[in-house]
């Protein structure tokens, strides 16, 4: 891992997690700088999602340290720096796409100068503003959550299988979004099985082994 003069956006030292005394992953050491993407690869069940949940602060690590912008990750620091895209879309079926996104922006804040309608345009969901989320397909829901991500002010994206459920066009969309986000000084952690095209940006790889 390279050492830079400035603190990396996210760094982990000796990070390990165990479930019922069974080690899931770790100890891991890695760092992600602004303008970089870290691809977390590995087969099913090696702990990719668990790693992301630990980094997001949803799970507590058993050992090691997570540093956000050079400081030990406190809940407040994490909440401002991290946007997490998980398997669950966090959309309410009875509410329209626009209402869902308005609520999520009320919860997470909104990047300055970003409009919800524009984000839907980018993710190819323009015209679905007033559709109830329950009527959307899995891929369309994914696109709405991508719009939520795009609106988030957080510099660090934790993306758990962002390519799942998406068509080729959607995969390109994710890659374009990651590229644009990195150009703006953000960073991204992306988990994949390894079968998809990686975003055309400066990437590091983290291969999780199969001992789990």
């Amino acid at each position: 891992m390279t050492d830079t003069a400035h603190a990396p956006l996210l760094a982990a030292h000796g990070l390990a997690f165990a479930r019922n005394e069974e080690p899931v992953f770790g100890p891991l050491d890695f760092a992600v700088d602004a303008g970089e993407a870290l691809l977390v690869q590995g087969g099913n069940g090696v702990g990719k999602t668990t790693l992301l949940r630990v980094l997001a602060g949803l799970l507590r690590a058993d050992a090691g340290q997570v540093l956000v912008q050079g400081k030990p990750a406190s809940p407040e620091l994490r909440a401002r720096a991290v946007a997490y895209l998980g398997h669950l879309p966090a959309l309410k079926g009875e509410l329209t796409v626009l209402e869902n996104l308005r609520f999520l922006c009320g919860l997470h804040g909104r990047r300055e100068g970003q409009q919800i309608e524009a984000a839907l345009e980018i993710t190819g969901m323009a015209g679905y503003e007033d559709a109830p989320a329950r009527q959307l397909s899995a891929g369309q829901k994914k696109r709405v959550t991508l719009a939520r991500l795009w609106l988030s002010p957080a510099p660090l994206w934790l993306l758990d299988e962002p390519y799942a459920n998406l068509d080729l066009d959607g995969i390109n969309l994710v890659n374009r979004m990651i590229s644009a986000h990195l150009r703006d000084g953000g960073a991204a952690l992306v988990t994949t099985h390894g079968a998809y095209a990686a975003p055309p940006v400066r990437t590091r790889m983290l291969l999780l082994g199969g001992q789990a």
Partner: protein
Amino acid sequence: MSAAPGLRQSARALLLRDLRLVWRRRGDALQPALFALLVVVMFALAMGGGREILRDHVAPYAIWVAVLLAGLLSLDSLFRGDAEDGSLEQWLLAPLPLPWLVAVRTFGHWLTTTVPLLLVVPVLGEFLYLPRAQLPVLMLTLLLGTPILSLLGAVVAALTVGLKRSGILVALLALPLYVPVLVFGAGSVAAAAQGLDPTGALLLMGAGLVASAVLAPLAAAAAIRIAQG
């Protein structure tokens, strides 16, 4: 770089969302009120319309029990929907204190499930020949007591949100916590009916409301953190 959401802004967004959701499922929203109505009607039928017995010995207690059980019925939905669709994850990750979001959600839940129930209480009172003079005291105890029930229930609902199906467990955990509220609530109505001053019991309930409004969201938030881990 960002406009971080404030406490009031987030509370508004969350309440607006809950009200919209209830409006879209307004059939379900009437369920607690209908349930309470059913319990009270059954009570009146089972007692065979003994007017004096109903008025003096049954009315305030039956109404209190009906309201309490109806609240218990809707308790499981407090966090379960949000847990299942991943909303709770996003709450945990939001740059806002989780106890605040829990408190707002609980208030929204009280507003949408219990307030419709309180609106039918005068009707329930008529079914059971509740003397009209007792209605204000009864309403006051319910207004003070039902938020306590919701707040205590929020802790129980948060504790069981990690389970696939909580069913009977919610009731088992919540009922012992509900007993003191029920005793003071129904008791102060009874005291007022006998011409005694219910102020002491009402003040105690007010104190209970303040204490639970402060402490219950903290406990519920801690339970949600554990359940989501």
